[in-house]
């Protein structure tokens, strides 16, 4: 086994405990999670319409968060990322840093492994420092925390704050007790979009039928 130069020797928390610590603070935000354990554990604490679970496309939770942050500047967006996912989209850190969206909190749960495919170690296990990478990409604030208390403090500050922030939480490499989620992805997508747009006062899609003869285009919900 490769000797770890990074992370969890200095201690690590359980991810479910970290999520539980910030769960109340997520009530008035829009949350985007990665797949697998993060989604299942957040769900196990209680699903809400403002939670979006990106169940497949690895790396894109942060890009979805950027899109939300840019189009809903008055809403706080919280991305719940993972080390494997973040490493797949390091370029996205540089894209986000071009905008420095003040309403985006980027939380990365770093268990130094790809748990859902058997626990193979990621590059953070040999020293890749995601907080350092985020800072170097241009994030004005990026910290690594190892205890639930520190995580609660930093995450709450990021969620309540007005500056783009990244928090890397070193967590134990363990799967959730259950992957059970009774939310179909389409149900999740439409519910979340409705919740996000309601918060922003934006209309739902598709637009309601227009009066015949306006703008030469009649849209109807019947086929």
């Amino acid at each position: 086994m490769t000797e770890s130069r990074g992370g969890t020797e200095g201690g690590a928390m359980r991810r479910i405990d970290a999520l539980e610590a910030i769960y109340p603070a997520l009530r008035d935000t829009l949350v985007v999670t990665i797949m697998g354990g993060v989604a299942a554990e957040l769900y196990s604490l209680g699903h809400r319409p403002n939670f979006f679970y990106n169940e497949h496309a690895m790396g894109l939770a942060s890009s979805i968060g950027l899109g939300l942050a840019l189009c809903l500047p008055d809403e706080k967006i919280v991305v719940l990322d993972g080390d494997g996912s973040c490493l797949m989209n390091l370029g996205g850190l540089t894209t986000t840093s071009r905008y420095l969206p003040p309403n985006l909190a980027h939380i990365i749960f770093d268990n130094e492994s790809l748990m859902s495919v058997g626990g193979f170690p990621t590059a953070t296990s040999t020293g890749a420092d995601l907080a350092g990478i985020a800072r170097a990409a241009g994030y004005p604030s990026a910290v690594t925390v190892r205890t639930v208390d520190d995580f609660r403090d930093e995450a709450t500050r990021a969620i309540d704050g007005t500056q783009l922030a990244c928090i890397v939480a070193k967590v134990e490499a363990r799967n959730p007790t259950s992957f059970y989620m009774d939310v179909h992805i389409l149900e999740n997508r439409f519910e979340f979009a409705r919740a996000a747009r309601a918060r922003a006062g934006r209309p739902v899609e598709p637009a309601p039928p227009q009066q015949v003869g306006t703008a030469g285009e009649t849209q109807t919900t019947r086929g």
Partner: protein
Amino acid sequence: MRGDPALGPWWEVAYERLKAHDVRLIAHVPDAVLSPLIRRLEEDPFFVVVPLTREEEGVGVVAGGYLGGLRGALLMQSSGLGNSVNALGGLSLPYQIPFLLVISPRGRLAEFNPSQVPMGRAVPKVLDALGIETVTLERRDELAEQIDQAARTCFSTSFPVALIVSTLLSGGKRG
């Protein structure tokens, strides 16, 4: 370039039709053929223009924007489709997130770089394999109507639609 020059450049029409359909969020990796359209969009504060590092990110950005209530378009060279396939298959399609996928084709007509050919030739088959409705924009006189109909299908049915900007319309990239 095909069509009546008096009708104006293709990218001016594309700009107008995107605006007419309230497509405000524009994510892109720059491309030479698409550059006049990108610059035109950047000039108008109506649009939120997001330059990407890699095309795949754009699938996420336009998804987030759409969930938040902004219609989007993702602009890229055909090579970028190769960088985006799993994101389209794992996010846009199963979650039914609509956006206009505007592709500048390389490796087909008017090509000078042989390394563009294999991916460029694969583009229609890749889009077809994913089940993405694809429209080739080739004639200047049909351009506005094609974009209008594509946008209606896209945002009414909640699936992405691809628009390929033919070199017969744009003139292609001069090596």
